[in-house]
């Protein structure tokens, strides 16, 4: 059952990158560009945002701001995953490649799988998992790019819908503490409210507020 769950996440990731490849083709980027983006950026939502903002004629600076905001979430992910891999002898530079691989899927999988891997093998395990997932996604990007000319509109919409569904459910599955559940629910509810303010950093504002309220509830419960 566990291996099925990881297969499902890989399938969803594959389909998401099919969609990203198709989006890159329709926005007239080169195949090399699309593949390099998967390798270097390695974050689905960031790539969707990058392609759609640049494709709609925004400047590189505007795109960089939009992507930077969406990528803030990677910071706490890295902070929360790396302690699982570290031993007292681990040097910081040994973790650089592992840190690059951290994105939603790997963050979820590390929290799920690493506790069952012996601590001294966890960095190697993460490298293997990361390289495997990146390879799968490079193939999917190329395939989506090649297919895109023949992709029906409905199929393209279904593929783009996979990202929010898979992200929502894999995060929900990973919720253990009351603070995680609250953070997810409040984050979903607060974003539409904050978005009406058009701050330009809506995701950041709603995320930090919702996360902090959720932590407050956890802190209050622990004291009571």
């Amino acid at each position, binding site marked *: 059952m566990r291996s099925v769950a990881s297969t499902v996440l890989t399938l969803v990731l594959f389909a998401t990158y099919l969609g990203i490849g198709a989006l890159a083709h329709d926005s007239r980027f080169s195949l090399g560009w699309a593949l390099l983006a998967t390798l270097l950026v390695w974050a689905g939502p960031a790539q969707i945002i990058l392609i759609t903002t640049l494709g709609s004629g925004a400047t590189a600076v505007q795109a960089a701001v939009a992507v930077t905001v969406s990528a803030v*979430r990677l910071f706490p992910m890295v902070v929360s995953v790396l302690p699982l891999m570290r031993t007292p002898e681990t040097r910081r530079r040994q973790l650089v490649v592992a840190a690059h691989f951290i994105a939603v899927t790997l963050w979820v999988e590390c929290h799920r799988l690493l506790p069952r891997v012996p601590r001294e093998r966890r960095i190697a395990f993460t490298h293997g998992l990361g390289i495997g997932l990146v390879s799968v996604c490079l193939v999917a990007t190329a395939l989506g790019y090649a297919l895109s000319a023949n992709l029906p509109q409905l199929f393209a919409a279904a593929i783009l819908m996979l990202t929010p569904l898979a992200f929502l459910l894999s995060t929900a599955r990973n919720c253990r503490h009351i603070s995680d559940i609250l953070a997810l629910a409040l984050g979903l509810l607060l974003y539409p409210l904050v978005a009406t303010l058009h701050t330009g950093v809506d995701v950041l504002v*709603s995320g930090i507020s919702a996360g902090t309220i959720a932590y407050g509830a956890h802190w209050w419960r622990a004291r009571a």
Partner: protein
Amino acid sequence: MTGWLGSFVGDPQALLTLVLAGFLPNEVWRMLGLWLGGGVDEGSELLVWVRAVATAILAGVIAQIVIQPPGALAGVPDWLRYGAVVAGFAAFIATKRSIFAGVVGGEIVMLAGKWWLG
């Protein structure tokens, strides 16, 4: 750059944009996490807060894709996108948290709704 390699890689300026607007904005946060997260203990209270903020920011990104949809997804009416997410979540809960059932359920509702609308 000309020929096959030229058309594969494309405009050098687009590559520069990729590095500046795509690679660096993401990598900066990862390396900052690596650099500043060094002394944090696995079970610490700080990490509980950091996890909550990461989860809530991801929730915001999810909401953003559904509320302000990219590309072909914009062709699906608002109510149908929201309905598909709710249906997917219901299927997920009904199957004792199966991601597969939830994703398939949500997609079926969206495709059926689109087909029904014609």
